[in-house]
């Protein structure tokens, strides 16, 4: 195999003098090729970013997901949400646990004398029965079972520890017509959900 002489090499054939000259680690020697990057600002930035992210870090996780066409109303309330069945009302549709129940337009057009949303009532009714059974059989976390026992004596529950029996979350767009909210609350009440958590954005 033929042996060839070495080709062009960086800093030998290609000088890059403009880089080597300005670099602090060059040592001033003609052939020195070490370039020391000043990492101090980078490390400063990383430290500040990590500190900020650690401050906003939430170990409880996010119970609700962002949806298209859904801007939550703003409030000063600071109570944290807890796990419960979620009714979502966007600008165009009503969903329960991610499944489409009805469109906003059809519900607003409906003048039913019961003032209920039937499709939502069916789902909520089934969910209420299932949750009631779970609580009765102790298939919920112990602290929530305890909260259910305390609720019987009308004791005020601790934040995030409300009895899951009859508890649901309403996540509605800020521009939703109040007629729709009234219908949903009425439907939830009829299905046995006596405790509603209205999801809001903090100011």
């Amino acid at each position, binding site marked *: 195999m033929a042996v060839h002489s070495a080709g062009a090499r960086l800093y030998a054939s290609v000088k890059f003098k403009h880089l080597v000259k300005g670099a602090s680690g060059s040592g001033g020697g003609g052939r020195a090729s070490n370039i020391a990057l000043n990492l101090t600002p980078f*490390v400063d930035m990383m430290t500040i970013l990590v500190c900020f992210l650690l401050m906003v870090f939430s170990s409880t996780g996010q119970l609700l997901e962002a949806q298209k066409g859904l801007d939550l109303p703003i409030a000063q309330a600071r109570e944290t949400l807890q796990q419960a069945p979620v009714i979502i009302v966007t600008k165009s549709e009503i969903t329960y646990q991610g499944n489409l129940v009805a469109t906003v337009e059809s519900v607003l057009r409906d003048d039913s004398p019961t003032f209920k949303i039937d499709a939502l009532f069916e789902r909520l009714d089934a969910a209420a029965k299932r949750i009631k059974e779970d609580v009765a059989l102790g298939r919920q976390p112990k602290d929530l079972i305890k909260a259910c026992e305390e609720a019987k004596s009308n004791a005020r529950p601790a934040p995030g520890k409300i009895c899951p029996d009859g508890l649901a979350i309403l996540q509605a767009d800020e521009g939703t017509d*109040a007629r729709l909210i009234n219908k949903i609350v009425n439907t939830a009440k009829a299905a046995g959900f006596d405790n509603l958590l209205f999801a809001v954005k903090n100011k």
Partner: protein
Amino acid sequence: MGASIGTGDKKSVNVELNIVPFIDLMSCLTAFLLVTAVWVNIAQINIQPKGKTRDQSQVQEENEHVTLSILVQSDKIWVGLSRVNEFQEIAKKGDDQDWDKLETTLKEHKASAFFADRSDLEIAAESTVAAPVKYQDIIHAMDLAVKVGFIDVGLSDPQGLAARPSL
């Protein structure tokens, strides 16, 4: 190891720390925290559906206490007391409702003998096609009620308010 003397010169006191592992750790931590960060803080307002409903098949409960009722309409807010039948009208201020006046009114009621040791109140919103009321207004009224001390907020149907002004 982690640190090395800069030059072999006896007089040199420069120490170079090896910050590469530190930067690695910081990069991993930043990436993890950015992915798991919750940017929107969601809170809750706890309410109980209250009052009479339009559904006649449901049990209609009667309350023997004086109840503080708020009725939100598109152009005004009514604050009323049941049994006493006392109503106060809070007209809209510009484009928005007069939330400051509502807060002051609620504070006055909270300080009164009826509600000094009570924290319940009911809110309803009367919305029509011609004069719609937005959900944000209901939340704002509830938020003020909770702020003032009425933490047991009940949402009622406008027809079922304990104190309903005769419009």
